[in-house]
């Protein structure tokens, strides 16, 4: 029994990898081959799908747009969440507990509920179809997430650290930036990773708030799928490329992912 224990995770990983393999397989095939023959690996191996994405501006701009608003969102979310999380973890003030829970309720709001009002709001203030609009809209669920994660990490740091620093004559901001921020660097990394991730995978709001100039890659894909008919190879290649940023950053936070999902509370 014990000797075959590895089989469970191994089979599970195989199950996870099969659809991804199929996507990669498709991305190296020509459209004719996809529709004409069924094969477990590409018979006429081609890189033309990828070449098209890297040379056609409507495609590669989609990636640039997505990355732009994701980065703006991550920077905004983490930088405003840092002082707030510190306040929640160190101070008592009027309404703190209610505020803390109210923040999280925004993580529970179905994006479909907000799609139309968001469109009207951001059109009204003239930000429609800009990267900033999507970045700000994603703050709705990313700021609460960042506050909760950072608060969890900060509460793990003993208060004596703060008190010692004040006794040593540090001003608040000098202590905060020079000592406290480096101490919870891992927490900041995790919070940034989660903001990056949720902004990267979300599509409904990103699609609603953009038309041409800031169109995310995911929306470019949906349009191709519906208008250009059956360009499945191209679609598969575009999909495969969206996996890369995640796969790249995940290695650095692998031991902290669970802690992040538990909002810093494992």
């Amino acid at each position, binding site marked *: 029994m014990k000797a075959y224990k590895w089989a469970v995770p191994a089979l599970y990983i195989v199950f996870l990898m099969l659809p991804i393999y199929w996507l990669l397989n498709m991305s190296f095939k020509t459209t004719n081959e996809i529709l004409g023959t069924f094969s477990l690996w590409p018979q006429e191996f081609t890189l033309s799908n990828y070449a098209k994405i890297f040379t056609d501006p409507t495609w590669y701009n989609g990636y640039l747009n997505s990355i732009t608003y994701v980065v703006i969102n991550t920077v905004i979310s983490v930088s405003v969440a840092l002082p707030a999380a510190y306040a929640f973890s160190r101070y008592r003030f009027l309404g703190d507990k209610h505020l803390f829970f109210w923040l999280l309720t925004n993580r529970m709001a179905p994006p479909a509920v*907000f799609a139309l009002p968001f469109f009207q709001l951001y059109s009204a203030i003239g930000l429609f179809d800009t990267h900033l609009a999507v970045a700000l809209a994603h703050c709705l669920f990313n700021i609460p997430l960042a506050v909760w994660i950072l608060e969890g990490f900060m509460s793990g740091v003993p208060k004596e650290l703060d008190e010692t620093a004040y006794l040593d004559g540090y001003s608040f901001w000098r202590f905060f930036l020079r000592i406290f921020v480096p101490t919870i660097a891992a927490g900041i990394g995790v919070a940034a990773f989660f903001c990056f991730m949720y902004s990267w995978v979300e599509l409904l709001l990103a699609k609603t708030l953009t038309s041409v100039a800031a169109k995310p890659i995911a929306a470019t894909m949906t349009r191709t799928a519906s208008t250009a008919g059956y360009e499945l190879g191209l679609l598969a290649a575009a999909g495969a490329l969206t996996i890369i940023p995640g796969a790249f950053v995940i290695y650095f936070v692998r031991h902290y992912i669970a802690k992040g999902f538990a909002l810093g509370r494992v």
Partner: protein
Amino acid sequence: MNDRTANPRAWWFVLPVLVLVAFNALIPLMTVVNYSVQETFGDNVFFWEGLKWFEQVLNSDRFHESFLRQLAFTGMILAIEVPLGIAVALSMPRKGPWVSVCLVLMALPLLIPWNVVGAMWNIFALPDIGLLGRMINGMGIDYNFTQQPVAAWLTTVLMDVWHWTSLVVLLAYAGLCSIPDAYYQAAKIDGASAWAVFRYIQLPKMKRVLTIAILLRFMDSFMIYTEPFVLTGGGPGNTTTFLSIDLVKIALGQFDLGPAAAMSLIYFLVVLLVCWIFYTLTMRNESQ
């Protein structure tokens, strides 16, 4: 959040967060409330309708059906993902190079954009060009998720299991890793069975993380939109039209703003209510 000093000026620290989130949450929410009690025929002319839309939505068969569909879907994925996630976490290695391999590969589906997940499963499950579709049909079972309601359901559930079980695995695994070796040694000395170890050591230690996992999976599966929309488009017929898909159809497709807004509020309140009950019960358990 215990052992904190009173400091009213801490509000300044929270202010930027409050402004940004309130801007994004309160203004749209008020817009929704506004629509939910009024009727419009365009040109920004509105008429007061009171609770008419709420009554209409609550009495409509269409809402009942998509609500039940949503409950069934959420129930099904929770019933599969939680036990499966625990089982995988229990048999994962605790140390060595394989830990990183497992963690990275398992976390991969969580970072794929949701429409790509839908598109990927679409080409994976299509009966003519997809690996899964070919395999099932090859076994002599007639399977086509674009035509058969049952197949569409099973494919959607399988896709969600593929997408999100790793969340449960990662959280359960983190809970298991926090159990000191001494506990297992004590159990060994007492001659405890594997089931007893699970029931009295591992499960209690995982309780906290599992609560979070179930809460997250409930919330996110109740809001699911993009993946089934790309995979099945809510079809065949209405068979995989979950709440969010139905809502977007009414709001942006038919542009029935009143009913859509009323439905939004009912929908949001249900999610909030369930999460609040869950949150309170957990907090009560923890303080005991």
